[in-house]
C-alpha cells in the first residue's frame, strides 16, 4: 500500500520512462517535423525528470543544475529547430520529413 500512497523514486522513473517511450514513438513514427520536435522535447523532459528525481532522492544540487541547463538548451534547440522547420517549409512547401529527400540521389 505504501507503494500507492507514498510517491517514491520508482514513480518518477516510471513516468520518465513513459515520457521517453512516447517521445521516441513520436520521433520514430510521426512524419510532421514539428511533431518530431515535440517528441524530442518529450525525451528531453523525460531526462529532466530523471535528473530531478535522482537529485531529490540523492541530495545535492547537481541534478537540479543539470536540469536547468537542459531546459535552456531545449529552448535554444527549439528555437533553432523551429527556424529550420520554417525554412524547410519555405523551400519545400511541406514539413513532411519523408518528402524532404532531394539530397538522396
Amino acid at each position, binding site marked *: 500500500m505504501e507503494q500507492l500512497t507514498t510517491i517514491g523514486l520508482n514513480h518518477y522513473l516510471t513516468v520518465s520512462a513513459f515520457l521517453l517511450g512516447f517521445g*521516441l514513438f513520436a*520521433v*520514430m*513514427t510521426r512524419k510532421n517535423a514539428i511533431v*518530431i520536435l515535440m517528441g524530442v522535447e518529450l525525451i528531453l523532459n523525460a531526462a529532466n525528470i530523471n535528473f530531478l528525481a535522482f537529485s531529490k532522492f540523492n541530495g545535492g544540487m547537481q541534478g537540479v543544475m543539470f536540469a536547468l541547463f537542459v531546459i535552456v538548451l531545449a529552448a535554444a534547440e527549439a528555437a533553432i529547430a523551429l527556424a529550420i522547420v520554417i525554412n524547410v517549409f519555405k523551400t519545400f512547401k511541406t514539413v513532411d*520529413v*519523408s518528402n524532404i*529527400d532531394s*539530397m*538522396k540521389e
Partner: protein
Amino acid sequence: MHSLIQLSIVVLLLPLLSFVILIFFNRRLPRRGDFVGVGILGTAFAISAYIFWTVIVQTYDPAFRVAWNFTWIDLGNVPGVGPLQIKMGVVIDNLTAIMLAMVNLISLLVHLYSTGYMAGDKNYGRYFAYLGIFTFSMLGIVLSDNLFSIYIFWELVGLSSYLLIGFFFEKDSAANAQKKAFLANRVGDIGMWLGILILYSQFHTFGFSEIYANLAAGKFTLSNAWLTASGILLFMGCVGKSAQFPLHIWLPDAMEGPTPVSALIHAATMVAAGVYFVARIFVLLTPDALHVIAFVGAFTAFMAATIAITQNDIKRVLAYSTVSQLGYMVLGLGVGAYSAALFHLVTHAFFKACLFLGSGAIIHAMHHEQDMRWMGGLRKHMPWTFATFTLATLALAGLPLTSGFMSKDAILAGALGFATVEGGGIYYLIPVLGFFSAMLTAFYMGRQIWLVFFGESRTHLKPADDHHADHHAHDSHAAHGDEHHEEHGVHEVSWNMRAPLVILATLSVFFVYSPDPLDGAKGWFMHMIQTPATVVGSASLEKPAALATAQQPLLAEAAVVGAGHAEKDVPESAAAEKGEEKGGHTFADPRQAEIAHATHGAHYTAIYISSIMVVLGISMALIVFVFKIIDPDKTAEAIRPLYLFSLNKWYWDEIYDATFIRGSVILSKVLSWFDTNIVDGLVNGVAVTVRKFAFANAGFDKYVVDGMVNFTAFSVNTTGAVLRKLQTGKVQTYVVMLIIAVFGYFVYYVTKLVY
C-alpha cells in the same frame, strides 16, 4: 690526259646525250627529234673519224696504244675478298680506233636510214632514243680498258637489244623474241661473269693490262685448267652476244625488231661485241680454250649455213648468214688468226649492214612482205637496191675483188695453218667445215638474189588466206597499217635510205682495205691489227709430250722444250713478254709462231679452195634456180628429212623447249609444290599454332583476368546496392536502427550478465 682520250670520251657520251634528249623530249621536238639523233651521231662519227685518221693514217704504228683510267669505286680491303678497287678507263689502240669509226659510221647510216624506214611509226621518237643508247653501250664496250666496265656495257647492250628487238611489242612474236634474246644472253653473261671472277680472284684487278702483265709474270697460282676454264667462261659471254652455238637461237628471232635495228645488231653493235671481247681477251686464252673456241665457231658456221639454205624469210636467211659469219670470226680467233678474224668482223659489218638495209628497203617497198617466195623481179623496180645488195652479197659469198673474200680467206688460211700445226686428224674438220660453209654461203645467197630480184613477180601466187593477200605489189595506193605509201606499187626507196646502201656497198670493195685484191695481208688493216703474243704460252700448257713431238720437225724441238717444262717457268714467260714488246709477226711462243708460219704458207691454198667452193656454190645456185636443171621443190621432196631438218633449224628450238624449258618448268613446278606444301605449310602451321595459342590466351584473359576485375566490380556493386538500402536519408530510420542496436547491446549485456 691524251687529247684522243678526251675526244673518245666525247664520242662515248654523245649517243647517251641523244638518248637522254630523245627519251624525254621527243614529243616536244619537231619531227619527233630524229634530227637530234642523226645530228649527234653525225658529230660522233666526225670525231671518231678524226680519231681514226690520227691513229690509223697519221701514226700508222701497229703498237699504238694510249690509255687512261681513274678509280671509280674504292672499296678498300674487303674482308674475304681482298683489295677491291673498281676503275674506269679508256684505252685507244688501233682496234679501238677502227671499231669506233665503224660503229659510229654504221650507227649513223642506220639513223639516217631509219628516218625513211620508220617514218610514221607511232613510237618514232623513242626508236631513235633506243638507237642512241644502243650505240652508247657498244662504244662503251669498245673503249673499256677493264673487264668490269666492259661487263657493265655488255649488260647495257643486252638491255638496249631487248628494247629494240621488242620495239613492236604489241606483237606477241616480238615480245617473245625480246625475252628469248635477253634470256639467251643472260646464260652467256653468267659464264662471262664467272670468268671475270676467276681472274679477279687471282690478281685483284679488272684491268686488261694488269691481268696480262700478271699472267705473263706467271703469277697465276691455280692450275692451268682454271685458266682454260676462265677463258672458256669468258668466251661464253661471246657465245651469248655473238650468237654462237648453243646460244645462237635468239639471233634469228631477233628479226622481229625493225629491220634497221637488225642491221645495227648484226653489223656494228651487238654481235660484234662478242667477237671484239674475245679479241680483247685473246692473249689470255690457253690453247685448250682456243680449241674449244675454234670448234664452236666452225660448228656454228656450218650449222647456220645449212639452215640458211631453206629459210624463206628474207631476213632470216640473212640472220643465219650472220650466225654463220660470226662462226667464221670465232673460228678465226680460235685458230689464232686474230687479225683475220677482226678483219672479217669489220668487212662483215659493212656488207651485212648493207644487206640488212637493202632487205629493209625491199620489205619497205613490198609493203612489209618478207617471204622471198612471193617476191621476184625487183631488179627493174629497184636498181639501186639491186646493185648494192648484189655487191654486198658477192662480198658475203666471198667472191674475189670484194672485202669479204680477203677476210674470209685470211681466216680459212689461218684454219688450214692451224690444222697443219695441230697435226691434222680432227683438226682438219675446222677448215673443212669452213670451206663447206663458204660453198653453202654462196649457194644460199645466190638463191636469195635470184628469188628476190630476178624472174617474174610472184606476189599473186601468195595463198589468198593470208592476211597480207590484199596487198598486191601492183595495187595502187596500197596502204599498210600505219605506214603511208603514196607511190604506186613497188618503187625505189628515197635518198635517205639509198645513200647508206651506196656508202656501205662501196666499203665492201677490196680497194678500201688492200691494194691487192687477193691478199688482205698487204693492206693497212692486217698491218695495223696484228696478232698479240699470248701471255699463256704453250710452255705453261700441260700438254702430253707425245702430241708435242708429233708436230712438225722444224719446231718440234722448241715444243719439246716447252713440254718438258710442263710447269710455268720464268724464262718462257719472260720470252713471251719480249715477244709482246716487239710486236709484229715474231712470236716467242712456239705454237703461235708455228701457226703464223703455216698460215702464211696456206694462203694460196686457201684462196684456191675457197674460190672453187664459192664458184661451186654459185653454180649450184644457178643450176637450181636459174637454169632449173634441178627442180628445188623435187629435190626437197627427195631429201625430205634433211630438208625439214634444215627448215626447222636443226630443231634446236624444239630441243631446248623439250629439255631446258620443259625442265625448268618441271623444276619450277616441283619448287612451287615444295613452296606451297612445305614452306607454306610450315608458315601456316606456325600461324595456326600461334592462332590456337592466342585463342587460349584470349580465353584466359577474358575469363580469368577480366573475371577477377569484373568480380571485384560486381561485389562492390552488390555490396553498395545492399548498403544503399540502409542509408535512406531518413533520421527516423536511423533512430530505429539506433534503438535496435541499443536494444541488441542491452540484450547482449544482460545475457552476458546472466550467464
